């Protein structure tokens, strides 16, 4: 759906935060000479260049503190970059915090006008959309109540309803879709899909990788303020998981907790029984996953686990030696465990195998996401992750009179 008309251009954007440790005049004067000691530089964004085309949907992902929200704010013009420049065109609506402009003492109606105005609508335009907005939010009965009496769900509904009615060319969304009940979330997602088909550009910050693979056609992975990966959402989520795993190991190492580092998943492979690795898996095959583990210091009670994910990152199947009530002998040197999963019926597509080494209490010692993968051939009669043969019969006209 994306065209090649850029709407946002970032050139070498960097943002430095100065963290000061004192705030009052007295402290500043007292510390004036040694102020360097009370300051700390922090680069929230480093040298980011991006071009975003009209009609594309971009997911910004990354661990906490990686600069996702800062980048989104820089695009929205809320934060001015220290160096570099941000250019954009077209009407912008930012959902950085739903209801940011809501004043608790005003009624829902007054807030709709205020918020719409903040997002750039004139009063006349708001008059025109008002009924639609209230209708979408589904809180007609409370529209003349002060918003401080609203539940957080009602708050969000009203704010989202306003934001999507301002006819933006570019919509910035910061983790706000996670609120509201399921029915409303669905409504929001439907609306976002409609936006996509209307060629609007959406930039989304989220921690839900499922949302990224489902809704975006491009993902940007940020880490410590730099772009780590920019491209297809599926690849980006894989990179992200690797990044988190690296982080976890580093973290453990820096805490002197080297026991975490000691356990390893060395390798793993997947095949259908009786066939070679890399061959397609047919419905009815027995799936064989063999994984090799080791532990530097020796581990008494341990658990081997496998999980199969669809390309969307959704877990389709998983089992562990613990579930099988199997106790394994002490792990030290490389030892291979073979899981045989009988009579699998996967739907067509690609699947990834994740293998984990866990302690008996369930702590993950080492994860190897997407260590192996397999393909299931295309089946034209049905879609989904489950294979089953469909049969359809026309039962005939239903007799209404009876």
């Amino acid at each position, binding site marked *: 759906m994306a065209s090649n008309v850029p709407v946002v251009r970032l050139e070498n954007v960097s943002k430095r935060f100065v963290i000061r440790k004192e705030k009052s005049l007295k402290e500043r004067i007292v510390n004036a000479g040694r102020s360097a000691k009370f300051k700390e530089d922090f680069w929230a964004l480093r040298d980011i260049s991006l071009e975003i085309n009209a009609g594309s949907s971009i997911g910004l992902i990354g661990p906490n503190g990686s600069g996702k929200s800062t980048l989104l704010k820089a695009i929205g013009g809320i934060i001015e970059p220290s160096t570099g420049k*941000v*250019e954009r065109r077209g009407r912008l609506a*930012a959902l950085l915090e739903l209801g940011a402009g809501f*004043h608790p003492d005003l009624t829902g109606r007054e807030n709709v006008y205020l918020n719409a105005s903040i997002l750039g609508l004139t009063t006349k335009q708001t008059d025109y959309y008002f009924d639609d907005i209230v209708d979408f939010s589904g809180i007609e009965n409370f529209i003349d109540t002060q918003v401080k009496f609203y539940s957080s769900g009602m708050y969000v509904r009203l704010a989202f309803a306003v934001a999507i009615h301002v006819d933006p060319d570019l919509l910035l969304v910061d983790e706000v879709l996670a609120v509201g009940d399921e029915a409303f979330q669905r409504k929001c997602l439907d609306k976002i899909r409609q936006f996509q088909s209307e060629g609007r550009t959406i930039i989304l910050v989220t921690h839900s990788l499922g949302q990224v693979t489902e809704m975006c056609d491009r993902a940007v992975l940020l880490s410590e303020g730099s772009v780590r990966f920019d491209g297809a959402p599926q690849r980006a989520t894989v990179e992200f998981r690797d990044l988190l795993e690296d982080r976890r190991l580093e973290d453990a190492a820096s805490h002197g907790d080297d026991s975490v580092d000691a356990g390893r998943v060395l390798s793993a492979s997947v095949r259908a029984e009786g066939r070679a690795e890399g061959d397609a898996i047919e419905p009815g095959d027995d799936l064989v996953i063999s994984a090799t583990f080791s532990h530097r210091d020796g581990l008494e009670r341990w658990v081997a686990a496998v999980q199969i994910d669809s390309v969307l990152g959704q877990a389709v199947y998983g089992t562990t030696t613990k579930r099988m009530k199997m106790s394994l002998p002490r792990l030290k040197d490389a030892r291979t465990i073979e899981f045989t999963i009988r009579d699998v019926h996967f739907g067509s597509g690609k699947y990834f195998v994740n293998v984990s080494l866990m302690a008996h209490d369930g702590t993950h010692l080492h994860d190897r996401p997407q260590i192996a993968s397999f393909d299931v051939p295309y089946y034209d009669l049905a879609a989904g992750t489950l294979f089953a043969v469909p049969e359809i019969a026309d039962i005939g006209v239903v007799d209404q009179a009876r």
Partner: protein
Amino acid sequence: MAGMQNVAAERAQRLSELPFEEAGARSALLQGTVASVVDIWKHRELLGLLTRRELKARYKDSSLGFLWSLIKPLTQLLIYAIVVGEFLGAARSLNNFAVYLFSGLTVYLLFSEIVGGATSSIVANAGLVKKVYFPREIFPISAVGSAMVNFLIQMVILLVAAFVAGTLTFGPHLLYGLAAIGVVIIYSAAIGILLAAVNVYLRDIQYLVEVVLMLVMWGSPILYHWTFATARMPGWLAEIYLNNPVTLAVVGFQQAFWAPGSGGEPLPQLGLRLVIAAVVGIICLIIAQRVFSKLQGNFAQEL
């Protein structure tokens, strides 16, 4: 679906014709000022809504509501009229002392409300500043708007009082009043915009402002006639005292609404002084706005 594709293509087409704009505020010197003014003008409806929000929220749950914004200055007036006017004897040398007092007080309260309100406006609206972009000058300016509403109500009372006392006459001297309002708005907006930005970085400013505003009140001839003060000052100090914009505005107001029928020594060249003050004030306002737009780049992370 074909229709949808068209919508998308049309949008892409339209966007491809739009020029790129830099996100946020520009900080170039003169073009920056013009761009900011245009930007603020585009958001004038929002300005109105924010001002209304400010006013509505202020007395939200009180049953007397707006009356409170009158009760305070009227009480102040009463105290000063009795204590300063009668007990201390200021009323003996100034005819219609209550009108004299209220003319000065009204214009001073406008100044103090704008400066006070504007200074804390950015910090008070932290939630908005951090989450949405629109010209941030809107906040201090909306403080001007809400102060104006209170001012107009007090103005009505002042006019009624002046009419009753017989000091309200029509003539060119009323222009002093208009000029005084202009000068006060220009200076208080300039100071308010500047301090609003500085207050983000240094929260002490809002407390400092309260103290300085009190000094300004006693430093301008509201409770006494300006000749009382200049008589005890060396010449150069008297000039500084007389030419400070709040003094000029206070004297201008007294000249417009109190002097006719009350006597009192008029300040020489009051008109010229007011015009010069206004011109200097506009330059200050432009500088304040430039400083503001330089500082605002970091608002979102300082709040």
